[in-house]
C-alpha cells in the first residue's frame, strides 16, 4: 500500500528476517527503563504483528505473550512489596517492617511501600515484559516449521527431529479424541479417573504405531542418508564444531566478566563463532539434501532486518551520549526524558508493518486444518 512501487504479491516474509527484526527490537529495549520508549516499542511490535501475521495457529500467540508480560510486571510489583528496596518519598502503602537476622542482613520484609521505589520496580518489570513481547512478536510472525526448513545442512537432522517433536502434541490430542469416540460408539461411557487406564493404553499403542509409520515414511524419503565422507574431513568437522563451541563459551565468559584479560573477550568469541560456522559449513557438505521451494530472501527481508537494526543502533547511540535519558529519574521522581533519536529508531522499526508484502490469505477451511504427517503415509 504505502510502497512507492507496485504493491508486492502476498507472500510470507522469511522467518529468519522476522527473528532478526525482533531481536533488534529486544536489544534496543534491553537497556531502557524509560516508559515512553518501552511502550513505544510495545506498540510497534503490536502494530507489526497485527498487520503482518499469518493465519497459522501460532500467529495468534502474541496475546499469550502479552498476558505473560502483564504477569511479570505483577510479580515484580509483589516482590517489591515483599523484599524490595523501598526508597523515595511519598508512602503509598504503610506496612510493618520485618528485619531478618544478621545472617541475612540487608533484606527487609515488607515495610512502607513508597512511590519512587514502586515506580522503579514497575519500569524494571515493564522492560522484561516488552522484551518478551518482542520474542512473542517473532513467534507469531515467523512460521517455526519454515524456519527449521531453512536451517543449514549440517543442522537439518536436528531440524527434522524438532519438527517431529513439535507435532507430537496435536497428534496426541487427536489420538485421545479418536479413542474416546471409539469407546463412545461401543457404549463405554465411563468418565473420570477410572477411564484413564482404558484410554491411556490405546493412545500409547496408537502413538507407537504412528511413530513407526512416520519413521518408515521418512526412511523411504531418504531422511538420515548421508554422503560418504573421508575420515580426515569428518575429524576436521568435529574439531571445528567442538573447538568453536568451546571458544564461544570462553569468549562469552570473557566478555561478561570485566576482570578477565582483554584478549579473552571479543577476539576469542569471534574466533569461536567463526570456527562454529566453518564446522557447520563443512558438515553441510556431507548432507545430500535439496530444499523444495526455498523461501526467498529479497528486498523486503533486508528492509525488515535493517529496521530492527536501526532501532538497536539508535538506542545504543543515545546510551552513549545521554544514558540518563533511557531511564526514569527516581531519586527525585520526575517525568522521564523524550530522547528523539531513540524514539525515531523505534518508530523506524514499525515500517515493516507497511512496506513488506502482505501475508498470503488464509487457505480454505478444509485444507487449512493441519493434518498429522503420519496419516498421509501408508506403509
Amino acid at each position: 500500500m504505502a510502497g512507492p512501487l507496485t504493491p508486492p504479491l502476498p507472500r510470507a516474509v522469511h522467518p529468519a528476517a522476522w527473528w532478526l527484526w525482533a531481536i533488534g527490537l529486544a536489544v534496543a529495549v534491553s537497556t531502557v527503563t524509560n516508559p515512553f520508549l518501552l511502550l513505544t516499542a510495545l506498540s510497534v511490535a503490536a502494530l507489526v504483528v497485527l498487520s503482518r501475521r499469518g493465519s497459522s495457529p501460532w500467529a495468534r500467540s502474541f496475546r499469550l505473550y502479552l498476558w505473560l508480560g502483564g504477569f511479570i510486571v505483577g510479580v515484580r510489583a509483589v516482590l517489591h512489596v515483599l523484599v524490595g528496596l523501598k526508597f523515595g518519598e511519598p508512602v503509598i502503602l504503610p506496612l510493618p517492617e520485618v528485619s531478618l537476622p544478621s545472617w541475612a542482613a540487608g533484606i527487609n520484609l515488607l515495610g512502607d511501600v513508597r512511590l519512587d521505589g514502586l515506580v522503579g520496580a514497575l519500569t524494571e518489570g515493564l522492560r522484561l515484559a516488552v522484551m518478551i513481547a518482542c520474542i512473542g512478536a517473532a513467534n507469531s510472525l515467523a512460521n517455526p516449521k519454515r524456519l527449521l526448513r531453512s536451517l543449514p545442512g549440517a543442522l537439518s537432522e536436528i531440524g527434522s527431529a524438532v519438527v517431529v517433536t513439535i507435532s507430537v502434541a496435536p497428534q496426541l490430542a487427536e489420538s485421545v479424541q479418536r479413542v474416546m469416540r471409539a469407546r463412545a460408539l461401543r457404549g463405554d461411557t465411563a468418565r473420570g479417573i477410572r477411564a484413564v487406564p482404558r484410554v491411556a493404553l490405546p493412545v500409547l499403542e496408537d502413538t507407537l504405531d504412528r511413530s513407526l509409520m512416520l519413521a518408515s515414511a521418512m526412511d523411504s524419503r531418504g531422511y538420515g542418508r548421508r554422503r560418504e565422507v573421508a575420515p580426515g574431513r569428518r575429524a576436521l568437522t568435529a574439531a571445528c564444531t567442538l573447538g568453536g563451541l568451546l571458544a564461544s563459551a570462553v569468549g562469552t565468559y570473557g566478555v561478561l566478566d570485566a576482570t578477565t584479560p582483554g584478549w579473552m573477550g571479543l577476539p576469542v568469541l569471534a574466533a569461536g563463532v567463526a570456527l562454529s560456522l566453518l564446522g557447520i559449513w563443512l558438515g553441510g557438505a556431507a548432507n545430500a539434501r535439496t530444499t523444495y521451494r526455498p523461501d526467498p530472501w529479497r528486498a523486503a527481508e533486508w528492509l525488515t532486518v535493517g529496521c530492527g537494526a536501526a532501532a538497536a543502533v539508535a538506542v545504543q547511540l543515545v546510551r552513549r551520549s545521554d544514558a540518563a535519558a533511557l531511564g526514569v529519574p527516581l531519586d527525585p521522581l520526575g517525568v522521564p526524558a523524550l530522547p528523539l533519536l531513540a524514539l525515531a529508531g523505534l518508530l523506524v522499526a514499525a515500517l515493516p508493518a507497511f512496506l513488506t508484502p502482505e501475508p498470503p490469505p488464509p487457505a480454505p477451511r478444509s485444507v487449512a486444518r493441519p493434518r498429522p504427517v503420519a496419516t498421509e503415509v501408508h506403509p
Partner: protein
Amino acid sequence: MLLRRLLSLAAATAVGAAALTGAAAPAQAAACSSTSGVTVVVQSSNGTSVRCASGDPGSAWGALQSAGFSLTAVQRFPDALCRIDGFPKSDPCVNMPPASAYWSFWHAPNGGSWTYSQIGIKGWDPKPGSSVGFRFGSGTAPGTQPATVSAPKPTTAAPRPTTAAPKPTPRRATTAPNTPRSTTQAPSGRTTAPPATSGAAGATRAPNAAPGTTPTPGAASPTASPTPSTPSSASPSATGEPSASASESSSDAVAAGPTDGRSSDGSGGSGTARLLGGGALLAGLASAVAFVGLRRRQAQTSV
C-alpha cells in the same frame, strides 16, 4: 557480587575537595577527636581523605554528606552510591557500577577493624564514635585504620570542650545553618584556639589522629596537620574565616540536599510538556494499532 556493589557507595576526590573547601571544615578535617562524631574515611586513586561527621548522622549517607562530600546516586538504584565529589567521572551512574570499579562501603566500631558492610549505605546507622570507610576499586578495605576515639573528653583546654560540646549534639545541623551563627562559630573557635599555637593544635590532635591513621603511608606523615593525607593542607591554618565559610557551605549542602532535589523536579514546564508529548505519541500509536487490527479483522471476515 551484586549485593556488594549494591551496598557500595561513593566517596571520592577527597584530595581536591579537601584542599579547596573540605579541609577547612571545622574540626572535620581529620578523624573525630571524641565519640561525639562519626569518622568518615574516603579513599580513591586521588588520595585519602579523613573527616569527621559531627553528631549522630542517621545513616552512612548522611555522615558523608555532613562531612562535606557531595554524592551522586545510581539512577536506577538510588540507594547505591555512584560518585563521591564527582569521582569517578567516567561512570554515567545509570546502571550499577562494575564490580571492579565501585565504592565499597566498610564500617568499624570504635577502635575496631573494617568490616565489609552487609547493609546498604542508606540503611546503616553509624554509632557515634564509630567509623565508616569508602574505598574505590574492586572491594578492598580502606588502607587507613578506623579511628580509635575516647569518650568526649578532648585533650584540649578544659573550658573549650564545654563550649564545643553542644555543637556535636545538634545532629539537626540542617535546621541550624542560618540562625545560630554563633554556634557554628563556636566549633571554629575551637579550632581557632590552636592557630595562635598551631603547633599545639597539631600536638593536641596527634594523640587522636596518630593512632587512628598510622599505617597508611600518605596519611601518617604529616601528623601535625589535621588532614594527614593532603600535604597541601593549608587547612591547618584553619583559622576563623575559612573554617566558618566551610562549615557554612557544608551545612548548606546538607540543608539544601533534601529540599532542592524535590524542588528541581517540580520545575514543571518541560516536565509536563514531555508528559503531554509522550502521552500523545503513545495514544497515536495505540490508535494506529487498534485501527490496523480492526481493518485486518474485517478483511479476514469478508474473505
